[in-house]
Every structure is written in structure tokens, then in C-alpha cells.
């Protein structure tokens, strides 16, 4: 088994996929850093100060004014109200919600990358891990060895999981190194508030607690990793089912993008919450952002993702061990 995994890892490394992914992430992080930097600068120019309290107070007042507009949809109004209450809470407790520094950048990056960017990167590896063996014909060589089929697939799955873990680590490391050049490398111990619970009537702040940013980041990384594993497993299943890598990728891409679109419009279609793609934004629960459909919680989303994960893993193994290869 160990040898098989080593073999699969060697194939992965030889394909240089991880290097490509690292390059893509690097380029995008440079772009995001620049965008973030511009954003900070514009805010400072507008208010003539970089005192975060002044900026936050101004944001609170601006949001309040947007709320007074009558042309707001109910969901958008609720979302604004919750973000307003959070900001006020931060301000009342004299805590900067976005302490400048690389760790804060990583946090924002992870929160925005969890539902599309990281899954896409994972797909680059997962989509062709099995189907490419078909397309270049090496699958026969692999299966004629005196090894059980499930072991072959297992070694592929394990190396996929290892690669996903590496991708998350690369994303974290690159965003730390690059954004730190601009924002500085400090801020690991900055406090951040978690435990806001969104209820039907608004924001419940009775369970909030203060965490050091590095702890919060560890949790965020864990959640992002879980999402990446689930998406990777789904792509893995498609790679087993569909011989064509492009078709498998297309299906997965459609699912992910439909999730991003659905997130904005499913609030009235309650059973949509059993789709995996509307459950990807796990970090929102830590932040206390309202879920796309009322009643969704962290454990609910984790359960849904877990069921999808288990099902697609089972299907992959069943199909791969039974399938005729010719």
C-alpha cells in the first residue's frame, strides 16, 4: 500500500500540477493584495485618517443610511442589519475587526476562496486522477498487477487527500508571504470575535467570545480543508464515472458555479439546503454571517457535506471495482 501511494504521489509530482496551482494562487494573491491595498488607501483618502474607529463609525452610519432606503429586498436588509450590529459590537468593545497585517489578509482570503477558488484548484488535480489513466491507456498496466482494485483506487484517493492538504498549505503560505510584504507580518494575536448567532429576529450576541487570530485561522483552515476534501471526493467520483476528463470537469464546474448563484436566490426554496454546493461557505458560520437559507447551522452543513462525501466515495469504489476495463 505504501509503495502504491508513493507511486501515485510520484505521478502527481511528475505532472507538475502542484507547481501550476502554486503559480495560479501566487498570481491571484498578488492581485488580491493590490486590491485590498487600494481599498484601504481609498478609505483613508476619503476620510483623511486611518484611525480604524473613525472608519468603522463612518461605515456604521453609512450602513444605517442604506437601511433607511425603501427599495431593499428583505434578505438584503437583514444582511445589512446583521453586519451593522456586528460592527457596532466590535466598536462598543473597542476591537478592530480587521487589524491590518498578513493574518487578517489570510482570513479574508480564505473566507472568499472557500466556495469557489479553492474547490477549483482542487479540481485541477482531482478531475483527471482516474480518467487520465483511461485516456492515456495506462489503466490496463495498473490493473494487471497482482493488487486488488480497491487498493489501487485507495492509493489514488489517499494521494489526492495529501495533495489537497498541500494545496491548502500552499494557499496559506503564499498569501502570508505575499500580503505580508505590503501589510506587514504582524497581527497573529489580534483579537477577533466569534460566536455570533444569526436568528430569525437578528443577531444574538450572548454567546460571543474573543479568540486570538491565529486560533481563528487554524479553525478557518480546517473548515476550508474539509470543503476541499468533499469537493475533491466528488470530482474523484466523476473521474471514475466519466472517462473524459473534460466532461467530468465541466459537470463539477457547473455544480460549483450553480452553488454560487443559488446562494443568492434560494432563501425561499427550503429543500435546496440539501445540495452540497449551498453548504460550502462554512467560514460564514464562524463569522456570524447569515446562512443562505434560514435554519442552516454549522453542524447541518457539515452533515450534508459528510453525506455527499460518503456517498460519492462509496459510488467510486463500487463502480471502480466492478467496472469492465477494455
Amino acid at each position, binding site marked *: 500500500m505504501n509503495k502504491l501511494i508513493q507511486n501515485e504521489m510520484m505521478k502527481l509530482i511528475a505532472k507538475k500540477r502542484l507547481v501550476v496551482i502554486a503559480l495560479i494562487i501566487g498570481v491571484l494573491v498578488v492581485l488580491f493584495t493590490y486590491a485590498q491595498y487600494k481599498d484601504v488607501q481609498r478609505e483613508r483618502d476619503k476620510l483623511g485618517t486611518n484611525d480604524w474607529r473613525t472608519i468603522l463609525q463612518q461605515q456604521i452610519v453609512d450602513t444605517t443610511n442604506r437601511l433607511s432606503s425603501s427599495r431593499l429586498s428583505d434578505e438584503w436588509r437583514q444582511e445589512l442589519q446583521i453586519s451593522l450590529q456586528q460592527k457596532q459590537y466590535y466598536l462598543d468593545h473597542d476591537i478592530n475587526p480587521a487589524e491590518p497585517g498578513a493574518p487578517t489578509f489570510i482570513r479574508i482570503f480564505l473566507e472568499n476562496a472557500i466556495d469557489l477558488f479553492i474547490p477549483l484548484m482542487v479540481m485541477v488535480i482531482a478531475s483527471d486522477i482516474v480518467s487520465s489513466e483511461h485516456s492515456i491507456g495506462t489503466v490496463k498496466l495498473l490493473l494487471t498487477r497482482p493488487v486488488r482494485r480497491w487498493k489501487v483506487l485507495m492509493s489514488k484517493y489517499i494521494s489526492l487527500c495529501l495533495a489537497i492538504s*498541500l494545496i491548502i498549505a500552499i494557499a496559506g503560505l503564499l498569501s502570508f508571504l505575499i500580503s505580508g510584504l505590503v501589510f506587514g507580518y504582524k497581527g497573529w494575536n489580534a483579537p477577533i470575535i466569534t460566536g455570533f448567532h444569526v436568528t430569525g429576529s437578528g443577531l444574538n450576541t450572548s454567546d460571543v467570545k474573543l479568540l486570538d487570530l491565529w486560533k481563528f485561522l487554524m479553525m478557518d483552515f480546517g473548515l476550508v480543508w474539509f470543503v476541499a476534501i468533499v469537493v475533491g471526493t466528488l470530482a474523484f467520483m466523476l473521474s471514475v464515472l466519466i472517462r473524459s476528463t473534460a466532461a467530468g470537469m465541466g459537470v463539477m464546474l457547473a455544480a460549483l458555479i450553480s452553488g454560487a448563484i443559488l446562494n443568492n436566490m434560494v432563501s425561499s426554496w427550503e429543500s435546496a439546503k440539501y445540495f452540497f454546493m449551498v453548504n460550502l461557505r462554512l467560514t460564514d458560520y464562524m463569522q456570524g454571517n447569515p446562512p443562505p437559507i434560514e435554519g442552516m447551522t454549522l453542524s447541518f452543513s457539515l452533515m450534508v457535506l459528510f453525506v455527499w462525501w460518503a456517498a460519492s466515495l462509496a459510488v467510486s469504489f463500487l463502480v471502480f471495482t466492478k467496472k469492465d476495463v477494455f
Partner: protein
Amino acid sequence: MSKNYVRLVTITGAAFFLLWLGGLAWAVGEYYAGSTESIQKPSAQEKVVPNKKGLTITAIGDSLTRGTGDETGKGYVGVLADELKERTNQPIQLTNLGINGQTSGQLREQVQQIEVGRQIQKADMVLVTIGGNDLFRGGEGLMDLETNTISEIEKKYIDNLNFIFQQIRKNNEDATVFFIGLYNPFIELDQGKEMSKIVRRWNYDSAEVSAAFPKVVFVPTFDIFELNVNDYLYTDKFHPNTKGYRLIAERVASLVTW
């Protein structure tokens, strides 16, 4: 490709696998652990360092402060800040805390917030507009000109205004406060004459309250909108338009000295 390299990547991957798994478990545990200790609000408000370079303006109040109706979005506060910047060649730091539809009661709450207090504390100049929503109630006030109801509303308003000025003075003893008076947007309507009378008395009482505090200047605007009111009003016939705001700003600008 060396075997050791592959082994190294594999082991690194495995290490991160375990690390992220730990992070996931931690996140779930922490999320459901509940609060252990409550977060303390900072008890004492720390003294702010005043902005040494340039002039700091803090504006509080209602939609007039916000600039509703001005196509450029600046309002009289923005125009005034621009004008002062030009005149003095100093950087101006402007904090606009105006909220649409705010009444004197709501402003009374707002000025008690710690951060709003801090903003007032570091200001060299405080601009206030309030009372329009108390009196006109979004046009409803026009229907109901009963002297009793209005004097009741006014009593509450005067009380709130007093409190607001006290709060400003408590936070900042030196800043000049400009309090912008009301105009009558309904002056050309049927009941415009009666409304004008009420607004004049309202302004007079507001000026009296302002006079009771040091360095609080009441700035009248009634006369600006008296003759050609429709030239200076936005399409909602209630808020000033760009020209109207410019006139208010010029009037305040002429009063600013330092």
C-alpha cells in the same frame, strides 16, 4: 526524480492533513462550546490625541447633514469642507455621522455612543442639523397644525436639543458648534403661512437654547428659502438641491474663523 523527494512531499502532505483535520475538529468544538467568559466593554474612554495637522470636522444630525437631495452627494457639509480646504490649504478630516430621517430623540441616543463621543471630542468644529423630522414628520406635520400637538412636540425637542448640546460640551469644550436652523419647504403651499409661523417660533426657541451654551452658533436658513423656495428644493419638495446646499454651506463658511 529522486525517491527521497517524493517521500518528503508525501510526508509533508500527511503532516498538513493531520494539521487541518485538527483545525476542523477545533472549529467544531469551539463553535459549540459556548461562551466561557463574557467580553468586557472598555470601561474608561481613552483620551484621544487631537489631530494636530489640519482641521477636524464632525457633522451629526439628519438627512441635511447626510446631503439627501444633492446630486453630487456632498450636502452642505461636503461643500463646506471643500471650501475650507481651499481657503486654508490645510487637510480637512471630515466625519459625517448624519442619518436619514433622524429625529432629535434618536440623535440624543446617538451622541451617547462612546465612539460618537470620541469623534466629537477630537473635532475642531461640530455641525448639527436636527429637528426637521420632529416638526414635519415627513410631510405629515402639514396636515396637523394643531397648536397643542406642535407645542408638545416642540417641548420634547427642546429638551432633547438641550441634552445634545450638553453632551457635546461635555466631550469637547472648545469646538465651535454650528447649529443649522430650519427652513419652511412648504412655504408656497396653501398652509405655508401658518407653517412659516410655526417654523419661525421653532427657530427662535432653538436659537435661545443655542445661546445658553458657549460657542454654539445658531445659523438661520429660513430666509434663504423664503423667496424662491422651488429653485432650491430637490424633486421631493422637501430636501434642498445642490444649489440649496451650496447656499447653506456658504452661509456657514462665512462664519468660520480660527
